[in-house]
């Protein structure tokens, strides 16, 4: 079934910026990483419930969250990872993880490891139970072709946990074997990086999101297309899908109706469609046909979306962003018909 509409079921306004979201073990339970340097918990199944802020722990924006087993693990621009005690909402363990901003935190499907990417251009793997460092690897250059610091924004793990992909500011993607941590493939999406050599003499863009198809054979890459005026996120939201083992690009979808960055991507379980979200000053949720890239449905949102969690089974999508969170139910052709 292909989605034909989104029905918003809940939303909340905030003073802060919510950069990441993770679903808890209870239905309707979510955790957010915030610009107030905190981790927040919200139970949206209880309409009267108010968000609860965990104790202080980080010293900068919280940009990555993973719930794995009974653990909640957060990563931040402060370069640290924190394992939280969800009951007491206190830090249980804090480790210096990277030398620059941590961009994403992701758990492996079987729950034994957590993966981080950061602007030191390293992907690191950690043991969830012990917080011990397992491995670090990179195939991403620390400087852009114009000699400025690069950034490693995106990471994805395949559904079976065997593959990992990392994507950086200049549009380079590497695919890794999760057993050996050997590189098994690479792709280029250079249009995601805009360098303005004449008017403004700096850059913008980058690969901001990655997602493997459920069978692991395709890789969706999200970011922003070429930007004319790089003072703003004024470029088209750009999605590229590859058959990564062949290095073959299957399609490119650019959206000029809702511009900006694609911050997160998810595939339908039957691989028939892909959902993306992101934005510029405002936001969007867009469904694409996974074969052609054709836009199936789109919802504009009042603010930029930084992250979402998509429950394939329940058909719910919960998103967070600039001073806002919301949850939607997907409706498909059959449901609408």
């Amino acid at each position, binding site marked *: 079934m292909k989605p034909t509409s989104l029905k918003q079921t809940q939303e909340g306004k905030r003073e*802060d910026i919510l950069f990441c979201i993770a679903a808890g073990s209870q239905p309707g339970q979510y955790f957010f990483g915030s610009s107030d340097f905190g981790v927040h918990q919200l139970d949206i199944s209880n309409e009267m419930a108010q968000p609860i802020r965990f104790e202080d722990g980080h010293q900068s*924006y919280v940009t990555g969250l993973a719930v794995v087993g009974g653990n909640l693990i957060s990563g931040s621009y402060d370069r640290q990872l924190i394992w939280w005690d969800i009951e007491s909402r206190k830090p249980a363990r804090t480790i210096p993880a990277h030398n620059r901003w941590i961009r994403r935190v992701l758990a492996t499907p079987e729950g034994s490891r957590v993966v981080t990417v950061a602007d030191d251009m390293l992907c690191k793997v950690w043991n969830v139970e012990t917080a011990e460092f397992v491995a670090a690897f990179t195939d991403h250059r620390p400087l852009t072709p114009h000699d400025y*610091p690069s950034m490693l924004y995106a990471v994805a793990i395949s559904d079976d946990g065997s593959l990992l992909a990392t994507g950086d500011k200049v549009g380079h993607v590497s695919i890794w074997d999760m057993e050996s941590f050997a590189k098994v493939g690479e792709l280029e999406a250079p249009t995601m990086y805009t360098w303005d050599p004449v*008017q403004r*003499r700096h850059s913008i863009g980058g690969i901001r999101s990655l997602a493997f198809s459920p069978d692991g054979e395709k890789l969706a890459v999200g970011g922003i297309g070429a930007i004319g005026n790089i003072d703003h*996120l004024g470029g088209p939201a750009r999605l590229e899908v590859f058959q990564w083992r062949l290095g073959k690009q299957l399609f490119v979808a650019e959206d000029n109706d809702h511009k900006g960055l694609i911050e997160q991507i998810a595939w339908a379980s039957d691989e028939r469609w892909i959902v993306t979200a992101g934005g*510029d000053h405002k936001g969007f949720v867009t469904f694409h046909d996974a074969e052609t890239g054709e836009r199936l449905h789109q919802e504009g949102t009042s603010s930029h979306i930084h992250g979402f969690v998509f429950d394939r089974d329940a058909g719910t999508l919960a998103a967070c962003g600039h001073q806002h969170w919301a949850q939607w139910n997907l409706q498909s052709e059959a449901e609408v018909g």
Partner: protein
Amino acid sequence: MKQTHFCGSPDHRISRRGFLGAATGATALAADMTVLDVLSRPALAEDLKRQQKSVILLWLAGGASQFETWDPKPGWPTGGPFAKIPTNVPGTHISELLPEMSRRLHYTAIIRSLNTKIADHGGGYRLMDTGRRDEPGVEFPHLGAIIAQELAQPDSRIPDYVEMYTSTEGRRKGSAGFLSGRFNPMFLTESMIPENIRRLESISQIDHHDRAALRRLLANRFSRDLPSSAVGCHNAAYQRVRGLMASASLFDVEREPAAMRQHYGPTQFGEQCMIARRLVEAGVPFVKVARAWWDSHGQNFETHRELCADLDQVMSALLDDLEQRGMLENTLVISLAEFGRTPKINGSLGRDHFASAWSCTLSGCGIQGGALYGKTDEDGMTVVDGEMGAGDLFATIFTALDIDYEKEYMLGSRPIPIADFGAAPREAILA
């Protein structure tokens, strides 16, 4: 006002500015000859040369964020994600994006209390480059032209005022305004080396000299028969053209050692600042290097990570270079923009234009290194101490250079002070 003397000798008790003012007058045939006599005394002429004061203006075009540079507010909703770091000046912290500058703050005064009110690019640029608001019917001289007027040697054959602005966004050319056209900038936009100043290959060096000699012979005869200031200016212009042709090498960074080029870094901004140092070393009184474009309405933090890396390396290299050459004492390095950026972070993680509470720096000549002037409130919305306008900043700059900020230019019969009416220097910033 503080006086700078050429040396400790009582014989030499004459301010450089006083001398230059008189010497400029001499060109108009109204000189005090007892003052001009210093030119015939080689020791004094050498002192003059050593005492030459210059300005390098690092123009952060588009408006750099004070939060991500000189006035960090970590932990506040407006503060953004970056931490603050301690500096070599106890108690003073700056953004973590400027680690090299944090070790060189003893050269630099930070001003955190600019309230200039104009938050559009064009208006902000004119305000911060002239030190006053626009006024119908008057074209005020820009900072570089005033500095050139006050500090340039009357017989200089090199440019008095050079602007490098190679990015195209926000490019605006400075102006001598109602001052002499001599003080308009040499404006470099396409290339870092001035165009059309090399001798044509079709003209040999001998032929070139012969032509100049013939022109000089005819001009001298003409001016003997018909003495006038216009003829004098014509001849002076030719002299300056020859000076410019001879100064082409000043713009050639390849003449710098590899280690020095590495110190400044591989970017265009680095090369331009190296040229700026070469120019002031040769006696150019004012060089503006525009580093565009800081107008980060979207992705402010990513933009500043990129641009601050450039600013941090280049500005610290420039200060090191000037200091090691013994030039920093006589060279004022200014980092300034048309305005700062909003405390509020917008939906694209950007910051917009903001002129109510922002920062700049002054380093080197006449400046109390390590000074921290002015204060904003905890979330950076307003100035709570030491508010300064553009005129006050100009008065402070002039005073640092031993230029009387109350000096007046005459526009017809109207006196116009070089710093705006009511402006005053901030002594706490001055050495």
